[in-house]
C-alpha cells in the first residue's frame, strides 16, 4: 500500500524527529554541503531542521483544516437543508464577503493587526478556508437535501443532526474528503506565507513549509535545503489522499 507508506514516513519524522534530533548545532556558512543534507539559509544543519520541523506543519495545518471543516460543513449543510431561502442567503452571502477579499490581502492585513501566535495562525488559515468549504458542501448537499427521503424525515421532524449530517453529510462525504485532502496541503503553505508575513511561527523557524519558502534562494546552490522538506510535504500530501481513496474504496466494496 503505497499511500500508507508515503503517509507513514513524514508522520514518523514529524513525531519522533524532535526526539532524535537533539540540540541544534552551531552555524556554518549558508547553503554549503557539509552535513548529510548541507546547511540552510542561515547556515544551520538542514537534517536537524527537517527532523525538528514536522510538528508545527502537521499540527497547524491539520488544526486549521479541521477547524474550517468543523464550522464550514455544518454551515453549508444548514444552508442546503433549510427550506427558507432567506436563511440560506443569510448564511451564505456574508461568507461571500470574505471570499471577495483576496486571500493574500486578508492575510497581510490580519497579520499586521491580530496578535501573533499559533492560535491566531490556525484561526486565520481556517477563516480563509471556511467560505470555500461551506460553499462546496452546500453545493454537494443540495440534491440530497430536497429528495423524498428528506421529506419523509421532515414529516416526523427528524433531528437536524440525523437529517443534515447523518443523511446528507453521509451522502457527500466522499466529495468532502477529497476536498479536505487537498485543502490540507493548501493550508500548509498558507502557514508558510503567514509566517513570512510575521504571523505564527518565526520566519527562521524549523518548519518544513517555512524551510521550503526561506531556502528558495539557495535552490541552485544547496537544493537539499528545499528538496528535503518539500519531499516530505509532497509525501504527506500524496499519502493522505491515496489513503483516503483507499479507505473509501474499501468501504464501498463492503
Amino acid at each position: 500500500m503505497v499511500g500508507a507508506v508515503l503517509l507513514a514516513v513524514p508522520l514518523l519524522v514529524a513525531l519522533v524527529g524532535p526526539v532524535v534530533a537533539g540540540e541544534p548545532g552551531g552555524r556554518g556558512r549558508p547553503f554549503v554541503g557539509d552535513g548529510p543534507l548541507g546547511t540552510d539559509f542561515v547556515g544551520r544543519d538542514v537534517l536537524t531542521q527537517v527532523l525538528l520541523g514536522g510538528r508545527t506543519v502537521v499540527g497547524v495545518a491539520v488544526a486549521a483544516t479541521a477547524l474550517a471543516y468543523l464550522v464550514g460543513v455544518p454551515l453549508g449543510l444548514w444552508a442546503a437543508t433549510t427550506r427558507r431561502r432567506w436563511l440560506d442567503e443569510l448564511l451564505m452571502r456574508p461568507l461571500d464577503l470574505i471570499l471577495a477579499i483576496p486571500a493574500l490581502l486578508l492575510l497581510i492585513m490580519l497579520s499586521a493587526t491580530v496578535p501573533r501566535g499559533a492560535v491566531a495562525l490556525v484561526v486565520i488559515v481556517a477563516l480563509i478556508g471556511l467560505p470555500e468549504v461551506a460553499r462546496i458542501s452546500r453545493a454537494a448537499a443540495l440534491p440530497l437535501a430536497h429528495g423524498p427521503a428528506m421529506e419523509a424525515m421532515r414529516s416526523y421532524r427528524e433531528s437536524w443532526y440525523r437529517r443534515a449530517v447523518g443523511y446528507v453529510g453521509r451522502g457527500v462525504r466522499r466529495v468532502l474528503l477529497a476536498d479536505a485532502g487537498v485543502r490540507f496541503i493548501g493550508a500548509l503553505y498558507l502557514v508558510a506565507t503567514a509566517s513570512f508575513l510575521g504571523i505564527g511561527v518565526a520566519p527562521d523557524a524549523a518548519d518544513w513549509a517555512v524551510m521550503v519558502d526561506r531556502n528558495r534562494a539557495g535552490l541552485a546552490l544547496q537544493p537539499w535545503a528545499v528538496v528535503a522538506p518539500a519531499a516530505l510535504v509532497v509525501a504527506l500530501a500524496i499519502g493522505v489522499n491515496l489513503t483516503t481513496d483507499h479507505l473509501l474504496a474499501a468501504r464501498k466494496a463492503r
Partner: protein
Amino acid sequence: MTGAVEGPVTEAVDGPGGAVAARVVGLRADVGGRRLLDGVSFDLPAGRILAVVGASGSGKTTLGRALLGEAGPGVRLTGTVQVAGRTVTTAEPPPPGSVGYVPQQPAAVLNPVRRIGPVLHEIARRHPPVDDDSCGKDDGGEDDGRGRGWIVGRWGVRRGPARAAVRGVLERVSLPADRGLLRRFPHQLSGGQQQRLVIAHALLAGARLLVADEPTTGQDNLTRQDVAAELAALASREGLAVVLLSHDLHLVRAVADDLLVLHRGVPVESGPTGKVFAVPRHPWTRRLVATTGPTDAPGHLRTAAETRQRETRQREERPREERPREDADREDAHREERAGGRRLLDVRGLVAGHGPNTVLRVVDVQVAAGECLALVGRSGSGKTTLARCVAGLHRPRAGTVALGGRPLAATVDDRSLTDLASVQYVFQDARAGFDPWRTVLDQVARPAVRLHGHPVDVARAAARAALDRVGLAGNLVTRNPGRLSGGELHRAALARALLAGPRLLVCDEITAGLDGVTRDRILDLVDEVRHADGLALLVISHDRDVVARLADRVAVLHDCHIVEEGPAATLLTSARHWLTRSLLPDDVTPDRTPQDAVAPGPPGDAVTPDRTGKPIAQERVSSDDQ
C-alpha cells in the same frame, strides 16, 4: 421442479419466435446464507412473454436482474443465465442495449439533473426507430435515421427521425409529447408518468429481450391497458422476448404466454398462462389466483386502440350523462350530513400546481374519522399533489386544509408535533422515501421517538411489532433499504406511518407492487386499525380491489376537479361519469357490492360482470386460515 421447468421449454420449441432469447438453468441467488432464488430454470423464445409471479419478496426482481447480469449488494448468483446464446454473469453483463429493463422503482433510474427530452432523443438517435406506424415515417426514413440520425442529431442540424420516434413512443405509453413535458426533469413527473417514461426508454432502445418489473404499478386502468397492449404488440409484432415480473394477474392473464410462479425463491409451478390459471396445481398458486378474479373476459384488459375508441364514444355521450350541477350539490349536502359535522379532514377550495401549470383547481375533500375516502383518477391527474398538500409537503396556492376543525400549517416544518403525528403520508415511491444508509428498523422506529418522545428501545420494540404486522419479520428489517424488495419497502413505509399513531393516514398507492395475498393482508391491517381507533383514511389507488375493499366513499379526480364523488358501492357499480367506470372496471364484484349491479355503460360497452365475488370471498377465508 424439472417438470415445472419443462412447461415453457416445450412450449418454446413450437412457439412463434423459435430462437431462444433467454435461457436460465438452475439459477441460484444467495446472500449471507439466505437463499433468494433456488433452481430457477426456463427457456424464453423470442416473441413470447414469460410472466413471473409470486409473493412480495419471492425473488422476482432478483431473477429479473440476474438476466441483466446484475445482483443486489452482497447477492451471489450461481447457475447459468444465457441471453441470446451468450452467457451472462455479473462480470460480463449482456451487451449494452441488448436487454431492456423497466425497474420496479422508476424514479431511481431517471437521471435527476437531465431533462426528459434530451435523454429520450439521445436514446432514439442511438437506436434508429424500427416501427414506423406509431412515429409516422416511412421505411425510407428509417435507415437515414440509422445512418445520419445520430450524426445529424449530434450536430443538431436535423433531428427529424429521432424526434418522430420519441413522439411516437411517448404516444404509445400515453405521455404527452409536448415540449413542456420534454423540458421537465424526472422529479416533475407523477409516479405513473415516471414509470411510463422508463417504459418509453425501453421501447426506444429496441432491445431483443425486455425485463419489465411491475410495469403497471401505479398505472390507472386505462394506462394499464395501453401498457399491456404495448407489451403484447412488442412480442407479437417485433418478436421481442419479454420477462414480465408482476403481481398484476389481470395483466399477466391478458398478455403472458407462459407463467412461472415463484414461492420463496423456488419455482413452484409453470406452464402456459391459460392452463395455470384454469387449473392451478400448487396451493400457493391457487391462493394467488384466488385473490383476483381469474376472469377470462376478453374486454377486461382491452388493447389500447379499443380503449381509445371507447373513451371517445363515452366522451360524446358525456353531455347526456353529466347531471345538472344542483344534483351534485344535493349529493354533497347529503354526504355532509352523513359525515355529520364530525368531519376530521376538511380540505376546502384547494388550488395547487407546479410552476406555471395548475393541477388542482378548487378541490374540496372531506374525510370523517373512521371513514375511508378513495381518491382515484388517471395517472398524472394530481392525486399525489393533493395528498402532498394534505401532508404539508406541497404548498397549495389557495385553500385550506383543516384537521378536526383546526387549519393545518401549509408545510410540515410549521406544524406542531401533534399535527405531524396526526397526519401521516405513505410515499408512492417507497424506496426513495428511505435513507439508504440506515437500517429499516431504525428508520421505522424514529417517528415514535421524535413525535412521541418514546425512548429508543421502546420505539424499536413498537417498530418491530408494526413491521411484524405488515409481514416483515426478523433480520429482514435490520438491513439497509437497499437490501429489501420493493414490496417490502412499501410495507415498511406503511409501518413507519402507522407508528406515528396518526388520526389521518394518507396512503399513496400503498399496495402497488404487492401480490394479492400480501395486499389483502395489508388491507386487512389498515381496515383493522381504522375500525379499532377511528383512523381516517385517504387512499389513493388504481386498484379496483383496494377501493372495493376499503373505501366508504370514492372521489374521482379529473381535469383539476373532483368530477364525481359518492359512496363506494354506487360508484363501483353505477358510476355516472365515464371515467369512473373505465378507472374502476367492474370485473370482480366484491362481496360488499350487490349482485345485480351492472354498470350502465354506453350502448355497445362490452363490459359485463361475469362472475360474482362469492367464491373468491370463500377462497379468501379459506386461504387466510392456512
